[in-house]
Structure formats: structure tokens, C-alpha cells
């Protein structure tokens, strides 16, 4: 991004400051989401984080898609695909590697992890693979009716998953007994701290979307200038959005809380693809 800004010359310092501010705002948003999450407890906590990440991501994509200029119809797809790949391979792989190096063999709750994974596979296949094989419209697109249907189905899938995670089978998503870290026993924040964090969380989300809107043209010109494929824009967006969650998941893996890692990882993949 810095290189992209430099390529434009005049705006370089300004763009660099904006890029730093954007990453700062993403971290601030996730930190405040974590405070709120700690207050409400697992597994609702992961849900708060996931929703915050989704808001950032959708905000970024929509602001870029609605910007004037050439069509960016592929951006949403590229971002979602990059997010799925970064989560399923990058975050999960790193967590397993770090955790494995430290604790040799790690256990997690089979029910929770595979339930989340099943929903993720279904969602990703429906929205990313199926459009190639529908025959009403040529190419990788859905017709209007198909798009509406896919949207509704995705909502149903994700809604069911959230219901199962928070109400019906909560225990599937808690760390296995005997694995609780000291983090879980820290006193929950006060009501005032929670309220402040909620306000700051909303503010940070707004800042992220506005900054991204200002930065996206610079990023795009930079990528075109370097000669990289346009799908890189999606990967950059997904990476920025997922960075803080990846750090949180890694921390949990090092503390032998693989369940929390997987909740974080798969939890943020699901709404993103939905």
C-alpha cells in the first residue's frame, strides 16, 4: 500500500498516514469487540467479534463497489474467497503449527469444529462454485431470482448456525474441560467500561469504512501499476480485516485453547461468506 501511494507521488505522505490509521482503526475495533465479548462470555463473545469483522468487510466491499469507475463485480467474490483461504489455511494452519510446536498434540471439541466447518463448506460451495454451473445466465453469475434465493439460503444457514452455537448446543463450542486458561478467569469488565467500548467499537467501525473508501482508489492504481492481477485487491482487503482476529486466534492456540482459535477462525469465515 505504501508502494502504491509512492507511485502516485504527491499524495504519498497523506496516503501513508491514512493506511496506518486504517490498520489502527481495525485493531481498535477488534480490541473493543474483545472487551464486549469478555463481558458477555463465550460463545457469544466470538459472535460479537465475527459481526464486527463482517461489518468492516462488507463496508469495505460496498464502498469500493459503489465507487465510480470501472466495474468491480469480481471484488466481492475475490474478497470472500481470499477470506476463506486465509482462514481455513492461513489462520488454522498457523494455529495448529504454533500450538503443535508448543503442546505436541492439541484437542478440541469435534462437534463444534466440524459443525462450523460443514456450514462453511455449504455456504462457500453455494456462493462461489455453483454460479459457474447455473445455465440461465452465461458465465459465473446468478440471475436475480437465483441471487435472492442464494441470499435467503445463506441467511438460513448462518442463522441456524448462530442458534446452535449460542442456544441449543452451547457446550459444543466451549473449550474442553481442564483446558481453561487464566484469561477466562479474569474479572469481567464493568458495565461502564463495556458501554464505552461499545460506543468506541461503533466509532472505529465507521472510521474503518470511511478510510477504506478514501484509500481504495490509491490501492487499485498501485496494483495496476505494479502489474499484479486485480484479485489482489480482494486478498489485501481480506488480510487487513482478518489480521487482528488472526492474532487473537494465535494467542489462544499458544495458550493451548485451540477451541477458541477454531471458534474465532471459523466464526469469522462464516458470516463473511454468507
Amino acid at each position, binding site marked *: 500500500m505504501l508502494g502504491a501511494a509512492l507511485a502516485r507521488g504527491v499524495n504519498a505522505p497523506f496516503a501513508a498516514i491514512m493506511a496506518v490509521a486504517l490498520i489502527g482503526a481495525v485493531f481498535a475495533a477488534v480490541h473493543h469487540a474483545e472487551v464486549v465479548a469478555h463481558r458477555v462470555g463465550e460463545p457469544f463473545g466470538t459472535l460479537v467479534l465475527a459481526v464486527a469483522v463482517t461489518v468492516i468487510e462488507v463496508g469495505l466491499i460496498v464502498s469500493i463497489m459503489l465507487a465510480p469507475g470501472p466495474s468491480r463485480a469480481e471484488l466481492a*467474490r475475490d474478497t470472500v474467497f481470499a477470506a*476463506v*483461504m486465509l482462514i481455513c489455511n492461513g489462520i*488454522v*494452519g498457523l494455529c495448529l503449527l*504454533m500450538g503443535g510446536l508448543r503442546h505436541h498434540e492439541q484437542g478440541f471439541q469435534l462437534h463444534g469444529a*466440524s459443525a462450523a466447518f460443514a456450514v462453511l463448506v455449504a455456504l462457500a460451495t453455494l456462493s462461489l462454485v*455453483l454460479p459457474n454451473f447455473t445455465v440461465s445466465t452465461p458465465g459465473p453469475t446468478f440471475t436475480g431470482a437465483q441471487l435472492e434465493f442464494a441470499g435467503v439460503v445463506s441467511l438460513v444457514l448462518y442463522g441456524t448456525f448462530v442458534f446452535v452455537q449460542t442456544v441449543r448446543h452451547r457446550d459444543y463450542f466451549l473449550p474442553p474441560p481442564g483446558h481453561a486458561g487464566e484469561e477466562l478467569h479474569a474479572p469481567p469488565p464493568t458495565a461502564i467500561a463495556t458501554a464505552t467500548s461499545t460506543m468506541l467499537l461503533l466509532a472505529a467501525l465507521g472510521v474503518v469504512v470511511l478510510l477504506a473508501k478514501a484509500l481504495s482508489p490509491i490501492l487499485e492504481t498501485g496494483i495496476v501499476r505494479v502489474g499484479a492481477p486485480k484479485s489482489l485487491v480482494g486478498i489485501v482487503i481480506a488480510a487487513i480485516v482478518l489480521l487482528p482476529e488472526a492474532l487473537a486466534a494465535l494467542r489462544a492456540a499458544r495458550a493451548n485453547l485451540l477451541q477458541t482459535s477454531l471458534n474465532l477462525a471459523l466464526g469469522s469465515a462464516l458470516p463473511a461468506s454468507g
Partner: protein
Amino acid sequence: MAAVSIVFGQPISLGLDAKEEVLLGLTFLVGVLTLGTGRTTVLQGVVHLVILAVFLFLALVS
């Protein structure tokens, strides 16, 4: 995303190309194997990271 596309009349292109489909399928296959055991070691972590590396490499050098 679907709602936004419909409301604003923006075209939205969803299908992946063949290369990405293969990678997605591979990811899910390995993911099922990883999660299917309930216990994980360094090996699964490395396998996932290799797939990620392939994905990033092919995104730059298609």
C-alpha cells in the same frame, strides 16, 4: 452482499475460475481430515500453510 447487488443494481460476479475451485475443494478436503480426528499435530498445520502458500503464489503468478 446479494442484497446490496440487487438494491443498487450492481452486477455481481460470483463463480470462481477452475484453478480457484480446485484450491477451494482441496482446502475443504484437507480441512475435513484435519478436523475429523479431534486431535491435531504440527503436520496438519504445515499442510494447511502449504496450501495457503500455493494460493498466494498463484494469485500473483497466474
